[in-house]
């Protein structure tokens, strides 16, 4: 909570001013019963019409003053809140951008998004309320008591007696409310996740006829949400009747003892009316408490979630500050006894991997599912750092390069193509917005996507929907390859990124990449692709099982032979049958 609200501190003067104007408003409200007393006692009872009219117009004037104060308060409060929101959004976004992948994967994507969107709004709302209403309720209570003492201390006592009881009661209730609404929030999250999952898996659920099964599973989470909601709201709704009752009973006491005192002449009728009026205002203020508690408990949950991100100290990427400023230019890569395990587990993914790729040559990486191929690629742009051993680019440890400079020379094509909303051209320019159009087309031609783009109605200006929904799998992969090629990368990393291409397109792609001068690391399942590489690295359960050329591996590695056999080329096959 503390860190989040510290984002308000640059605006503390605004906050103070807003609160000041709120106090003006409040004072007017609190003075009114006092003025009523004067009108009754000095005007009506004393029979002085002048006094009535005088104080009546004062009251009207004060209302206007309160209004003006309120309007100014609104401006200032909303400026403070929007500035706060802007700042904290900025801080969160920056922080998330600076996370290393190791930190990044600690937070589920959906939850990071919520933290940057809904959670910010939630705290904004609470602060706005806080600057306008939230403090008002307790202040009205306190102010009314003070004013009541000022008007008639004896009768005011009856208002005070109930106060400690109510404070304790509210404290207990709010504690309960916080926990209960926390629970509600978790249930809401579960329901949302369930729905999301179902929308994604429509076909699967239908194929396996699991509609009823899913409905039942959903009913369970929905039922939990229902019970949690009922519990939380019922507790909250308990507050108001109790408060009302206690306040009203005190009011009765005021009337009774007030009447008694009036007999002796110690209390004026106007004073009694004023105290009654204060009591009623207190009741009104108390009735806002349950609302405030609900609001506050939600905001606290939001603030805590944001804080988790903001307070994340480890795992921040050092963007600069290293010695080697110039970018790597040869693209020679060496792995020296590299071992790696993900921060979340102890299970090693890579074990003692060593190899060297000369500048401008091509390495094919093969291996079974889960043997660590993608992980190996991720270590080069330093998404993760090796746990043991070192990785050298141009003979320099990757940790020594300036991160930006290192990544600038790398073109990465991930296994799952990720595109962004915007035109095709914007997507291709993603790495470098200054690239000229010719280069763009050249990269698109190399990636075998130029022709397809030309056939779109708006060609390079065609909009790519969110996550590329309007493109086929193969088109997305080719665009994502073109995007990497636009950068003219010294090091090109292809993570099994041709899986959705048909063979002729794929062949054409590899042909086009022949002339590329970059050092290439290609993860592939296909012997045909591997054959075209200068070296082949075969991984088995994180260890190098074989390393060499196609011919060498056919000789030395039984595993490689097995793979090769499983993928006999069409030509051999035709011979077999004809």
């Amino acid at each position: 909570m503390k860190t989040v609200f510290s984002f308000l501190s640059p605006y503390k003067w605004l906050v103070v001013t807003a609160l000041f104007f709120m106090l003006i408003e409040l004072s007017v409200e609190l003075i009114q019963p006092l003025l009523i007393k004067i009108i009754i006692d000095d005007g009506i009872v004393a029979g002085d019409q002048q006094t009535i009219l005088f104080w009546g117009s004062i009251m009207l004037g004060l209302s206007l003053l309160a209004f003006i104060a309120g309007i100014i308060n609104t401006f200032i409060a909303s400026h403070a809140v929007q500035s706060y929101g802007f700042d904290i959004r900025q801080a969160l976004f920056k922080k998330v951008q600076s996370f290393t992948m190791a930190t990044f994967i600690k937070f589920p994507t959906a939850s990071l998004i919520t933290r940057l969107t809904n959670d910010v709004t939630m705290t904004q709302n609470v602060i706005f309320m806080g600057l306008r209403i939230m403090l008002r309720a307790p202040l009205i209570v306190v102010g009314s008591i003070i004013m009541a003492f000022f008007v008639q201390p004896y009768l005011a006592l009856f208002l005070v007696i109930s106060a400690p009881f109510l404070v304790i009661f509210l404290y207990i209730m709010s504690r309960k409310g916080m926990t209960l609404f926390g629970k509600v929030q978790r249930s809401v999250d579960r329901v949302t996740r369930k729905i999301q999952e179902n929308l994604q898996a429509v076909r699967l659920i239908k194929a396996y006829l699991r509609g009823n099964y899913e409905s039942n599973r959903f009913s369970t989470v929905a039922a939990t949400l229902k019970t949690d909601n009922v519990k939380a709201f019922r507790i909250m709704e308990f507050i108001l009747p109790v408060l009302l009752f206690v306040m009203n009973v005190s009011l009765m006491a005021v009337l009774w003892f007030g009447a008694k005192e009036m007999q002796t002449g110690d209390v004026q009728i106007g004073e009694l009316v004023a105290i009654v009026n204060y009591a009623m205002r207190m009741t009104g203020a108390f009735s806002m408490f349950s609302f405030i508690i609900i609001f506050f408990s939600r905001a606290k949950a939001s603030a805590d979630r944001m804080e988790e991100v903001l307070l994340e100290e480890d795992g921040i990427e050092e963007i600069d500050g290293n010695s080697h400023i110039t970018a790597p230019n040869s693209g020679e890569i060496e792995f020296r006894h590299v071992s790696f395990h993900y921060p979340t587990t102890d299970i090693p993914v890579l074990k003692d991997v060593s190899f060297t790729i000369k500048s401008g040559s091509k390495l094919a990486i093969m291996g079974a599912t889960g043997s660590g191929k993608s992980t190996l690629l991720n270590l080069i742009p330093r998404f993760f750092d090796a746990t043991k051993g070192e990785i050298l680019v141009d003979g320099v440890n990757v940790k020594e390069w300036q991160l930006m400079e290192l990544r600038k020379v790398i073109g990465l094509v991930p296994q799952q193509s990720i595109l962004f909303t915007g035109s095709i051209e914007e997507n291709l320019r993603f790495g470098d917005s200054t690239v000229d159009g010719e280069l763009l087309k050249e990269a698109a031609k190399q990636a075998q996507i130029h022709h397809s783009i030309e056939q779109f109605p708006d060609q390079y200006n065609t909009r790519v929907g969110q996550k590329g929904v309007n493109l086929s799998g193969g088109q997305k992969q080719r665009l994502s390859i073109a995007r990497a090629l636009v950068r003219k990368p010294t090091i090109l990393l292809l993570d099994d990124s041709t899986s959705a291409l048909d063979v002729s397109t794929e062949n054409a792609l590899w042909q086009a990449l022949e002339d590329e001068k970059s050092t290439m690391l290609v993860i592939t399942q296909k012997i045909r692709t591997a054959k075209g590489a200068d070296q082949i690295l075969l991984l088995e359960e994180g260890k190098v099982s074989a390393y060499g050329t196609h011919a060498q591996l056919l000789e030395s590695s039984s595993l490689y032979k097995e793979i090769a056999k499983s993928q006999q080329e069409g030509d051999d096959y035709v011979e077999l049958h004809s």
Partner: protein
Amino acid sequence: MLNFIRKPFGYEPILTKEDLKKSTKKKVEKASDWKGVLSRIWKLVDEQRFLLIIVLLLVVVSSALSLLGPYMIGIIIDKYITQSVFVGLAKMIGLLVIVYVFLSISLYMQSYWMIGIAQQTIYRLRTGLFEHLQKLPVSFFDKRQHGELMSRMTNDIENVSQTLNSSFIQVFSSVLTLVGTTVVMLLLSPLLTAVTLTIVPFMYFAMRWITKRTSKLFKEQQQAVGDLNGMIEETISGQRIVKAFSQESRMLEEFTVKSERLKRTGFWALTYSGFIPKVMNLLNNTSFALVAAVGGVLAYKGSVTIGEIVIFTEYARQFTRPLNDLANQFNTVLSAIAGAERVFSIMDEPAEVDAANENKDYQLKGNVTFEHVTFRYNKEDETPTIQDVSFHVEAGKIVALVGATGAGKTTIMQLLARFYEVNEGTILIDGIPMENLPRFTLRSQTAFVLQDPFLFEMTVKENIRYGKLNATDEQLIDAAKQANAHDFIMKLPDGYDTILSADGGEISQGQKQLLSIARALVADPAILLLDEATSSIDTVTELKIQEALEYLMEGRTSFVIAHRLNTVRKADLVFVMEQGKLIEAGSQKDLLEKQGTYYKMLTNSKI
């Protein structure tokens, strides 16, 4: 510091006069048929209707009691205290205490029951919608964005829930209080009532002035929020690419622009809507002052008593509060009704048509026939995705579908699973037209391994069991072993009981495919549809599961899409697709002898 305070007034206005002129009407989206919507909600309330009526009665009671309280106080002041009559004062106060006891009890009971009713109704609405979603055809989901459906399932329902929870009682009691106060006030003093009511027209115009602006501003704010959220979502889910291309600072710049826009529209929206309570306060205070001043003069003249002034000051507050509430609740209720209508409109979407139950217990043999099948995803599409395709496959045969991306292979599979209805022609299973076969019968005997393996956020074991809910643990483990998934599963932190996360980050794409094959193995179907089921699996592992797949395909009609030759080679029949047409079909041998497209594909290794 002064500058600091002046700053909020320096925001440039974002609404022009022209903007405002355009938007005189339609503040909130209105339900076109709110009566229909209300009657459907009423139906959902179901057996709790009786309780709901009791709640309404309680609202009447509590509204009456909260009117009675101040009235009695006024009487006590006039008849007893100012007159110094103590006989009966104790009785009156005792009576008042009883009034307040009942007020508190009736308030508590009405919300207690209302919460129960509201949440139960929402539960029904939510589960009803979910159940209906399960019955909708796949094409329904193709046409709509997930985000939109999500917002109906969450935001719209949440709106209805909140309205039922509190607004319902509030609106009802506001109306009652409003009417009640006016009547009592008129009875007591028509003149003071008139004074109190002078604020109503002011209130009306002030509210109109504000809402005219806020409705526009809120819309603009909503757009800014949507824009920003979309960007956040994309950047975060594409974080790897952002990092790889070192675009963090550009992303931050873009973000700043969008965030600034939100700040600006947000400022105005918040400010204008923040005026509402201030205006209310002004009117409140003014009417209070008017009642005090005019009442004072009247009391001085003797036509009004002090007790009546007390009653009126309190009533004036009670009068503006429900007005305020009504104004606040009005939009909430309207948008909730609109939300409910959107929810109901989904529930009105026609469910997948299903055949009568005559063939319910039919055991599929697996003969598949396509007769001149033509299919378009959208009726407006000019070229059909599947064009006049006819073939016949005997039960137990393995069919390999080959062809370029976009040739219509996956669509054939989807038609076989009856995700879509054909436009022309018929698909027959064992000679029975597909539309005469209940979906349950068809799908319970068909297994589909999809291109994109999807895993649920539950344990590995439960994910495999998805294929057959009553499978024993042994069967699951057997299937996992056959699918070559057992070894990696055992290496997961909790083995088969490891809960997979929503992103499935712990396991690789290939491992996901292995699990989805295990899932199909457990299902034990008559027809098997494998759509690139092994594309992300390395060939060695594929070889290892080949045996399992062969075993799986044995005796079952299988349709296989694969880019790899060794998978195709096992097929009895090869279908070559091109631009939605079936251009070649036959056994491997026939096609090779024919030296047609398939032959060319093989010799150019174009599979």
